[in-house]
């Protein structure tokens, strides 16, 4: 396995659009993430966060625009690229009938992870599931599953980590642990892109924040005040009357698109 | 939308009527067709062949005619909608 961190150190989403029939899930989205930073992706439900993560994970084809891993596209990098991406989806990618250990074992083998045994032991340790490693996953609570799914996604030491709502179902302690884990990933040089609703936990964790609104990218201004306030400001500045509505003809929409980064 | 649908329904009824009428007219004429009577060999057959040939040809024609008609309707609808959307695209948004 040659998948190393050296593969790529930046993710560039360039002018990506994705259409589902007439519906524009993503509209000219541009975003860059560098190694060693955590980028938070905010926005209301159905704004296109999951679609954007799917495009970055090579799961969903962009209708227009391109995604660069380092300086190359997915098609040039081939199957091996998928071995450098770790995805925690909305659905957890776990087999309910298998035990926690068997799930990790299976995906570890599929990704051909080196030092598998010690890695799995460490992953179970991280998820604080060591004593329940032999239980089938469908007996776990949502929070436990979420913890296991995260470790499954990180098992092969990916260079790009894509997380879709990683805090759902986690209690405060687990959320804090997750934040610690993500910081460790960042410090180890991974690119972390995370879609979340949880401003309080994300505040102070993310290095940069962006928000999606009806498939469009809006920058969240950097500042010293709380993330939630800045997010609210980003929404209201764009369309003063109806912040959540998909007002395509809002006067500020065009200018906000270029304000990214 | 309802107006358009009513419009379509009108077409459907007209089409069905034409089919039924032409079919009835053809059925009324078929036995008197001198084509069949002029060929004495056919009369001896246990099962008259004319209805079979007639139905076969009528079906082939009807199927093609229906398909062409349907295609024409779809084309017209798409073009109308396209013109409308393009117009909306060019006019400045409210």
């Amino acid at each position, binding site marked *: 396995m040659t998948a190393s961190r050296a593969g790529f150190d930046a993710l560039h989403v360039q002018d990506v659009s994705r259409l589902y*029939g007439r519906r524009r899930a993503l509209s000219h989205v541009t975003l860059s993430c560098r190694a060693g930073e955590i980028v938070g992706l905010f926005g209301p439900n159905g704004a296109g966060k999951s679609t954007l993560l799917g495009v970055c994970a090579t799961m969903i084809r962009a209708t227009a625009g391109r995604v660069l891993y380092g300086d190359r596209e997915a098609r040039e990098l081939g199957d091996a690229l998928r071995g450098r991406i770790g995805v925690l989806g909305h659905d957890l990618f776990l087999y309910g009938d298998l035990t926690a250990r068997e799930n990790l074992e299976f995906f570890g083998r599929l990704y051909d992870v080196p030092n598998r045994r010690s890695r799995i032991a460490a992953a179970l340790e991280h998820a604080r599931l060591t004593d329940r490693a032999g239980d089938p996953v469908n007996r776990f609570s949502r929070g436990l599953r979420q913890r296991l799914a995260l470790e499954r996604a990180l098992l092969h030491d990916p260079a790009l980590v894509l997380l879709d709502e990683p805090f759902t179902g986690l209690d405060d302690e687990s959320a804090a642990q997750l934040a610690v884990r993500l910081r460790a990933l960042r410090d180890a040089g991974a690119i972390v892109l995370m879609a979340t609703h949880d401003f309080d936990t994300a505040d102070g964790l993310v290095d940069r924040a962006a928000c999606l609104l009806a498939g469009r990218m809006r920058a969240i201004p950097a500042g010293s005040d709380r993330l939630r306030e800045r997010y609210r400001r980003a929404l209201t500045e764009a369309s003063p009357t109806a912040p959540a509505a998909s007002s395509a003809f809002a006067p500020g929409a065009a200018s906000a698109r270029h304000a990214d980064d | 939308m309802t107006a358009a649908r009513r419009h379509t329904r009108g077409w459907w009824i007209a089409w069905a009527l034409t089919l039924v009428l032409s079919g009835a007219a053809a059925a009324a004429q078929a036995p008197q067709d001198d084509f069949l009577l002029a060929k004495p060999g056919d009369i001896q057959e246990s099962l008259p062949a004319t209805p079979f040939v007639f139905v076969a040809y009528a079906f*082939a024609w009807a199927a093609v005619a229906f398909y062409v008609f349907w*295609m024409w309707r779809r084309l017209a609808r798409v073009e109308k909608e396209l013109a409308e*959307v393009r117009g909306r*695209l060019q006019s400045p948004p409210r």
Partner: protein
Amino acid sequence: MRVATRLVPVLLVVAVVMLARAPFLIDAAPYESTMGLVQKIFYFHVPSALVAMTSAIVCGIASTVFLIRRRRLADHVALAAAELVVVFGLIVLVTGPLWARKAWGAWWVWQDARLTITLVMWMLFAGYLLLRRFGGAGSEVLAAAVAIFGTALVPFVYWSVNIWRTQHPTTDVVATLPPEMRWPLRWSMLAIFALSGALLILRTQLERGRAELEDAYAAVEE
């Protein structure tokens, strides 16, 4: 595409003129000795079957191109061809039993390989259309896979059905046709092929129009 657009009226005129003349030629053609008048279904039946077969092959090739290149045009052609398979296949499936009822005494004779293979193909491409209609977003890619299978299977279905219906020896009727029958057959064959060509182009354009409509809607939302 522009050439194709200009071809449509030409093909349509040719088809209409030839189809208008065809009944007289068919009427003038001699009777077949054992089947008599009913054998004249043949002059529309066989060309329709050939059009259906050709359209199936066109659909398969277009689907292959679409799956590799992801060109929208290829997908539109595939859809148009699949619809032609269903329309002309239906003509074959209705006229065939009418002929069979008179000639063999039964509406449907499973022993006839050609009728059976037409039924299988028709169902396959009807399934293709069902998938595109009800499969939801992205079903055009899935349908392309079905079409590739369908087209690749045509010769095998033909072969296996031939083995299956053992009773009757296969004879290639068209090759041994007397010249008085061959000429009207060729005439109607050409007419129906011209018609189907025009229909194929028109249907492709309809689909392109729909795609443009989707684009326009997406642009409006922008």
